[in-house]
């Protein structure tokens, strides 16, 4: 934060130049000290796949990966994210149109209803599978406990994550053999 450039406008309001790596792209935004990361993503960068359900850190619909860790982007100041790597739901699609196995599984197992919680759910699950490739059902539930869903009762969400984990494991196995 100390190295961040700042400018002050005529009204004495200070703004900071924040450098982010978002979905692999270098992006620069100029924000106030109190600007939230979620608003930078949505309003400055037009990455509206990151949702806002509460802005209080309760719902998890604003979940993004910050250096691989799931965070509620409504609780992160943009200036805190300076120099960091961020992955949003838009960053999950590989090579044009290949979906992430989690995305596939969410579709295949009817884990999506209104879809408002879905980007956050998928990113929380993504972070889980990165550090724990074969989670138990309980571990999946713990990993998405901060992502509220009003539609699915979590039944099919948990199922989808378990299936994706299994597919990824099998895929890895196949890679080894191949």
């Amino acid at each position, binding site marked *: 934060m100390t190295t961040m450039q700042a400018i002050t406008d005529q009204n004495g309001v200070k703004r900071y130049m924040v450098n982010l790596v978002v979905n692999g792209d270098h992006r620069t935004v100029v924000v106030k000290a109190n600007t939230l990361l979620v608003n930078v993503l*949505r309003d400055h960068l*037009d*990455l*509206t*796949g*990151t*949702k*806002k*359900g*509460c*802005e*209080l850190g*309760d*719902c998890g*619909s604003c979940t993004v990966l910050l250096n691989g860790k799931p965070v509620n982007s409504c609780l992160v100041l943009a200036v805190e994210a300076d120099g960091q790597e961020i992955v*949003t*739901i*838009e960053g*999950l*699609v590989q090579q044009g149109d290949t*979906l992430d196995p989690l*995305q596939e599984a*969410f*579709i*295949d*197992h*009817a884990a*999506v*209803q*209104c*879809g*408002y*919680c*879905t*980007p956050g759910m*998928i990113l929380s699950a993504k972070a889980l599978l990165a550090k724990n490739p074969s989670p138990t059902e309980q571990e*999946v*539930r*713990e990993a*998405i*406990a*901060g*992502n*509220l*869903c*009003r*539609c*699915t*009762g*979590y*039944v*099919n*969400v*948990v199922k989808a994550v378990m299936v994706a984990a299994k597919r990824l494991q099998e895929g890895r196995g196949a890679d080894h053999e191949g």
Partner: protein
Amino acid sequence: MRDNYAVIGKSVPKIDGRVKVTGQAKYTGDLKFPNMLVGKILTSPHPHARILHIDTTEAERLPGVKAVITHKDVPPLKYGISPARWDENIFCIDKVRFVGDKVAAVAAVDDETVYKALKLIKVDYEVLPAVFDPIEAMAEGAPQIHDEYPRNINTEIHQHFGDVEKAFAQAYHVRTDRFVGQRTYQSPIEPHSAISMWEGGKLTVYTSTQSPHYFQYYIARQFGLPMGDVRVVKTFVGGGFGGKLEPTGLEFAGAVLSRLTGRPVKMFYDRHEMFAHNRGRHRQIMEITSGVDRDGKILGVHANFIMDGGAYTSLGIATAYYAGAMLTLTYDFANYKFDMIRVYTNLPACGAQRGHGAPQPRYAFECHLDMVAQDLGIDPLEMRLRNARKPNTITPNQFKINSCELEECIQQARRLSGWDAKKGKLPRGRGIGIAVGSFVSGAGYPIYRTNLPHAAAIIKVHEDGSAATLYTGATDIGQGSDTVLCQMAAEAMGFVYERMKIVAADTETTPHDFGAYASRQTLMSGAAVKQAGEEVKKQLLAMAGEMMQVAPEELDCREGVIFVKGRPEVNITFGEAAREFFVRKGPLIGRGAYTPPTLGGTFRGAAVGTSPAYSFAAQISEVEVDEETGEIQVKEVWDVHDCGTVINPALLHGQVHGALYMGMGESVWEEVLFDASGRILNPNLAEYRLPTALDMPKITSALVDSFEPAGPWGVKEVGEGATIPTMGCYANAIYDAMGIRVYSLPLTYEKVWRALREKRNADFSQNRQMAEAVPATPDEAARGDGR
């Protein structure tokens, strides 16, 4: 009875699944338009106060503010989704009636300026005494909330079918119990938002809505516009559950701000404002009396209810009627009396939440029935079997029931849950309970009086025959109507789901439909879609007949292939015939519309609760109660549904899961709480206690075989039905585990703990009495062992 269908009955992936998992799906809050302003509403800090003066000058002077409006700038016409009681204004004129009532609005260049401007609006209030409890609000001398409604009575219902007094006089056993529900809130994860654009003489509103039609109708009415000059477009909607059925201040104020500024205006509620806007579930006070014969057959029921409506009517008149109307669906009895008073209080207005009016009365009735069964020494499941409604019957309030597999639902739930091995045999602290429910498949009559069809559809086959687009006013709010309606369209045309496109819920491009409420779309919108699809098919087969030199009657079309019946090798493709049709005759279009038959009786309020068809469900749950803390853990739930033919099993079970989830939250945790001055104490999802993935039990969702003659392909509702039995089901399981009854919702750990303590004290003094060798009265002895 059922054909071998090609498209329906299959768990095809959701048509919008891909855009939702990639973040491409755009919800209203995600949209931006050039030159767009941000708008916000100033609300009342007092639960009841006279507005003496509003000064907006300072706010108007703030740089970046483009418009500030109060009641002086908007039509004074009262509105409300219930035409029976229009009692809301866009902005309060003389006084505010709850904390959160709408007073003024601002449009400015950005969020920050809007919030600053709101703080600069000065409102002088004369604070008035307020009332928050419906019983106190009805008392003589209570603060008067609306001048037109003495004793704050918003609506009163008194219905009597058969002769309840006589039934009670003839009954072997009559019992009365009293229960209290709680205020809950739909809490969709997507907050409401709306973008209004008043351009030329035309108003366009992009909004998070469950019913573009009702929005269009009421917005047009408010501004004196022809409906054709108001276009309401639904974007993706992040859940509704009843809360997004009626237009809010966001649309009304947004429209005016847009007209004044000539710019698009985006408005939204934050989470706190959503709780304040509310329109969630009413808190009901429910007294139930029933009389039964020696075998437990119900002879008559009296439901005597009061509901806290909050400051305005919203959809509450219908809620009040539904609360009593739907009690007659599940059990067969001839005599029924229903009394209800809906009362205004200085709290946010209540409306329709999943299960509309029915879940709390159902909780009360199912608890009550268990107690009656206990009094008679009858197993609660057996008690329900003895009274379960049969198909092709008519309820005392004149609802015609066609298909009804309630008995089979109960039997299957019994088998799946292992009821016989568990009931009365589980270790202390563990218990099993049952409850049933039923719900409409669409309301028999629309919310306001009109003879418009309830649903309509157009299908346009693409010129080259490679795709077909369904145009429907039906409203997908996550439940998956876009998907099931495309499946239905493909089935009816003989086409494939994968080539279906949909344009839905845009009042300018799609034909009229009342929208997503009362679990209506699969049956009603589906019926219109089926008709449209069949019309396409008929034209296509005629064309193919010409092309193939075969009489059209000898042809059929399935999965995109038109073939001679019995000789499938003689065929052409759907696409070939469709292309040729366009070349010779122009666009290939199919149209459909659905109006339900005339339903119900002629008594006052007879329309509410009528439906072409009713779903039925039985739920059994197994719970564990911690004797020390009162903590309830639901171990497993079995839901068995009679929802007619299933179009998409995966989506259908998803509806059951979600409905059960909501019922579960309301059973144990959820409640909107207020302080002594009417301010919400827990206006956020954490303290409101929306259940997380860790709170959910194992759920088994099963179906019984059923076919509904009134529905297209035999369908009926599922989306709300599974919310209805849950609360009673858990309460009964808790009783089975610990022998305690909690008479109010939610069934919190604390209430369970208190009831356990009371029981311990009572048992203790009873034991001491017994030790002193006082013989138990036959009555107590009877109650003691439940025989």
